[in-house]
C-alpha cells in the first residue's frame, strides 16, 4: 500500500450506501478536499454479479482505508482485501457484537453509527489535526435523532399488519421501526420459489398488505405481486439513485417509501383518510 | 438433359477436374470409370448440384428430379428411423415400396433401424430410395459397393432396366467394369480430365483406357479381348501416361 503524501487520501467502500455514510463523516470533519470516498460497486449496478476491473483493484490497493461488509456478503472482495494489512480495513459485520443474521447492515442507522465510529478512528490516525472523532459523534447523534423521528412517525401509522418482503433483506430497516415482516419469498438472491412457499405467503398475508422489493429485483418481484394481489413498493436498498446525496437522505427516502405502504393500506381500508398526504422527496 | 461445358474444380489450389465437357442424353445410361482420386465423386457432386464449379457451366433443368446415391452415408443413431419410414419419405405408397424392396431383395429388413444396417443392406436401401422417387435422372456413386455378388449381377441388370421402367437417364460411377460394360450406353473414362468417352466396346479398346486399367485387369476379367502394347503401371501418376499435362 504505497501511500505517498502527494496522492490524496482515499477511502474505498464496497457499496454505495457505505460510501454515502463515510462521505457524510468526511464532510462533517471538513476533510472533503483532502479525502476522497468512492464505492467499488458503482451506483445502479448489481452487487451480486460483480467482477472487479483493474481500475477498481487499483483504487482498492491504493486506498487509505477500505470499508466493506464482509466475506459473506462480498465474496469477490475477500481475496483482494485479504492481501491488505488488516489495520486499515473496516469490516462492517465484524463490528457487530451479536452474530449477524441479515448482512444488509447498512439499513440500520444504529449499526451505521458503529461503522462511522470505526472509520473515524482510523481516519483520525491519518489526520490527527482534524477533529474526526468529534465529527463522528456529532454525526452519529444526528443519525440517532433521525431514527427516533422515524420511529415516532411509524408509531402513528397503522403498521400492525406488517409487510411482505420479496428478498429477506429488510430486517435492519423494519425491526427498529416495529414493523413486522409477515413472510419473505426468497432468502438468498438465487433462490427460486416453490408453490409451497407461495401458498404460505398467500395464507399469511392480510388484504392490502404490500410487498417490498429492491429496485434490482423489480422484474422478478412484479409478477409475484400481481399473483398475490399485493401492492408492490419498490425500495432502493443500494442507493442506486444518483440523486441521493447523503446517507441521511438515503434513510429518509427509504422511510418515505415504506410509509406509502401503510398509507395506501389505510386508504384501501376506507378509514376515511385521503391517500394524498405527504409523498415527499 | 445435362450438358457440362469446360467445368473445372479445384480444392485448396489442387486441380481435381480440368475442363470437363460432356452431354448426357435422355434415357442414356452413362458410366463414369477411372482410378481412385480421379475426381469421379467430385464430378457427380457437381452434377447433383452439391458443389459449385470453379469455372465452366453446368446446364440442367432446375426442376429435374434426381435420385441420388452418395458414395458415403453414415446414419446417425440419434434419430430412430426404420427402413420403411425412411423409404416412405420418398414414396408414401406402401405397394410401390414393397415392390421395389422386393426387386432389391430387402423385403425382410423393412423394420430394421437405418443405423444398424449392414454395408450392403444400406446400399440397397439407398438405391431403393433413389428409385422410389421416380427420378428423371439417377445419379449413382458406386451404388453397389459392398453389395454381394448375386446382388451385383441382379442390381446392375435392374439399373439397366430402370431406363424403360422409369424412363430416366442414369449416370453411374463404378469400378465393376466386367459387370457394367454390358449394361451401359456410354463410358466416360475420367482421370482429372476426360481421358476417353464413347461406347463401351470402343472405350475398352482405347489405348488410354488400357493404359489406365492395364493389362492384368483385362487378363483377370477376361471379358474383353484387345491388344496390349505396353506395360500396365499401378495407379500413381497415371496422368502423365495419358500423354498430356494438367495444371
Amino acid at each position: 500500500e504505497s501511500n505517498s503524501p502527494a496522492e490524496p487520501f482515499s477511502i474505498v467502500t464496497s457499496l454505495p450506501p457505505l460510501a454515502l455514510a463515510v462521505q457524510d463523516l468526511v464532510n462533517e470533519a471538513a476533510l472533503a478536499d483532502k479525502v476522497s470516498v468512492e464505492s467499488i460497486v458503482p451506483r445502479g449496478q448489481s452487487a451480486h454479479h460483480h467482477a472487479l476491473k483493474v481500475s477498481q483493484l487499483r483504487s482498492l490497493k491504493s486506498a487509505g482505508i477500505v470499508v466493506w461488509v464482509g466475506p459473506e456478503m462480498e465474496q469477490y472482495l475477500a481475496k483482494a482485501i485479504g492481501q491488505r494489512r488488516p489495520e486499515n480495513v473496516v469490516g462492517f459485520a465484524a463490528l457487530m457484537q451479536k452474530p449477524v443474521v441479515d448482512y444488509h447492515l447498512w439499513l440500520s442507522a444504529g449499526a451505521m453509527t458503529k461503522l462511522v465510529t470505526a472509520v473515524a478512528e482510523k481516519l483520525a490516525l491519518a489526520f490527527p489535526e482534524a477533529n474526526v472523532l468529534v465529527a463522528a459523534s456529532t454525526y452519529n447523534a444526528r443519525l440517532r435523532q433521525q431514527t427516533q423521528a422515524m420511529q415516532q412517525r411509524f408509531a402513528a401509522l397503522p403498521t400492525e399488519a406488517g409487510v411482505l418482503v420479496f428478498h429477506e433483506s429488510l430486517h435492519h430497516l423494519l425491526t427498529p421501526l416495529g414493523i413486522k415482516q409477515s413472510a419473505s419469498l426468497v432468502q438468498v438472491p438465487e433462490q427460486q420459489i416453490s408453490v409451497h412457499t407461495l401458498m404460505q405467503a398467500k395464507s399469511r398475508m392480510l388484504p392490502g398488505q404490500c410487498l417490498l422489493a429492491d429496485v434490482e429485483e423489480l422484474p422478478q418481484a412484479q409478477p409475484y405481486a400481481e399473483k398475490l394481489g399485493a401492492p408492490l413498493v419498490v425500495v432502493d436498498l443500494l442507493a442506486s439513485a444518483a440523486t441521493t446525496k447523503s446517507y441521511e437522505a438515503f434513510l429518509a427516502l427509504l422511510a418515505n417509501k415504506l410509509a406509502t405502504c401503510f398509507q395506501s393500506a389505510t386508504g384501501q381500508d376506507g378509514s376515511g383518510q385521503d391517500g394524498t398526504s405527504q409523498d415527499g422527496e | 438433359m445435362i450438358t457440362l461445358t469446360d467445368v473445372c474444380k479445384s480444392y485448396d489450389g489442387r486441380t481435381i477436374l480440368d475442363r470437363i465437357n460432356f452431354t448426357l442424353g435422355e434415357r442414356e445410361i452413362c458410366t463414369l470409370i477411372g482410378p481412385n482420386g480421379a475426381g469421379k465423386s467430385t464430378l457427380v457432386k457437381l452434377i447433383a448440384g452439391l458443389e459449385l464449379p470453379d469455372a465452366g457451366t453446368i446446364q440442367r433443368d432446375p426442376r429435374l428430379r434426381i435420385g441420388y446415391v452418395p458414395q458415403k452415408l453414415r446414419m446417425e443413431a440419434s434419430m430412430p428411423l426404420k427402413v420403411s419410414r425412411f423409404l416412405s419419405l420418398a414414396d408414401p405408397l406402401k405397394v410401390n415400396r414393397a415392390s421395389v424392396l422386393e426387386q432389391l431383395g430387402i423385403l425382410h429388413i423393412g423394420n430394421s433401424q437405418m443405423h444398424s444396417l449392414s454395408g450392403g443392406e444400406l446400399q440397397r436401401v439407398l438405391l431403393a430410395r433413389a428409385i422410389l422417387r421416380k427420378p428423371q435422372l439417377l445419379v449413382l456413386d458406386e451404388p453397389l459397393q459392398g453389395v454381394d455378388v448375386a446382388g451385383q449381377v441382379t442390381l446392375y441388370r435392374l439399373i439397366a432396366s430402370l431406363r424403360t421402367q422409369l424412363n430416366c437417364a442414369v449416370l453411374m460411377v463404378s469400378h465393376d467394369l466386367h459387370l457394367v460394360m454390358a449394361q451401359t450406353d456410354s463410358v466416360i473414362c475420367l482421370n482429372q480430365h476426360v481421358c476417353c468417352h464413347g461406347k463401351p466396346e470402343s472405350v475398352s479398346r482405347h489405348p488410354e483406357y488400357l493404359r489406365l486399367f492395364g493389362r492384368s485387369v483385362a487378363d483377370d476379367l477376361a471379358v474383353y479381348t484387345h491388344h496390349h502394347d505396353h506395360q500396365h503401371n499401378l495407379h500413381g501418376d497415371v496422368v502423365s501416361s495419358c500423354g498430356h499435362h494438367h495444371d
Partner: protein
Amino acid sequence: MIDLFTLQIIALPLIAGMGIAAIAGPLGSFVVWRRMSYFGDTLAHSALVGVALGVFAGINLTLAMVLGGVVVSLSLWQLQKQRSLAADTLLGILSHSSLALGLIGVSLLASAKVNLFSYLFGDLLTVNASDLLMIYLGGMICLALLVFFWRPLLMTAIDEDLARVEGIAVEKLRLLLMVLMAVVIALSMKLVGVLLITALLIIPAATARRLTQSPEAMALLAASIGVIAVVGGLFASVVLDVPAGPGIVLCAAALFVLSLLKHAR
C-alpha cells in the same frame, strides 16, 4: 394437502407448462438430432447482449433482446456452412462470446439502473392469463409450421446432402428450424426461465429416443414425457416445498434415468 386454493395457484402454471412441454417435445427432437443442445443457452446469453445494447441505445428492451437472438442465430447459420467445426463448438463460441459481451455491457452501463440478468429469468409460477394466451398462440403457430414442413425438415435432419439433391431448400429449412427454436425459447425464457425451457427441450427428447422406433413417435413421446414431468414437478413443488422449475427438470431427469433401465436389460 391440495385444496382449491392451491389449485388456483398452480392451475395457470400447470396449463402453461404443459403447453410449453407439448411444443418443446417435437422441437427438442430436432435439437437432439442436430446436436444443438446448447442453443437455448446461447440464445439466453445473446439476449443479455441485446439488453445491454438496448439500454445503451435507448431502444425497447424486448425488441433489443429479439435482435440479439436474431444476430446470434444468423451467425450460427452462417458458421454452420463450413464443416470443420461441430455444432457444439460453434454454439460454445457464440454463447461464451455473447456472455462476455453482456458482462462488459453491464460493467460499462454504470449509470443505468439495470440488472441485466433479471431480464433473463422468468418463473413458471408467475405466468398470468395473457402469458398463457401468448404461449398457446405462439406454440400453435410454431407447431403448425413444424407439421407443415415436417417431411423436408426430417429429410434435412437425416442427411443434408440427400435432401439438397432432392430439391429441398436445406439452408432455408435450417433457418426456419432455428427461427422456430428461437421463438419458442425466447417466448418461454421470459415466462418460465432459461433452465426450464432448455431442459424441457433436451431431456424429454433424449428419454423418448431410447423408447421409440420412429422420428414421429419420438417427437410425440417427448411431448408426453414433458407434460408428465411438468405435472409431476409441479406437484412435487406443492408437496415437497421445492421450486417449481427445478422440480420439473429433476422430474424429467428421473424419467430419463428410468428409460436407461430399459436398454440395460
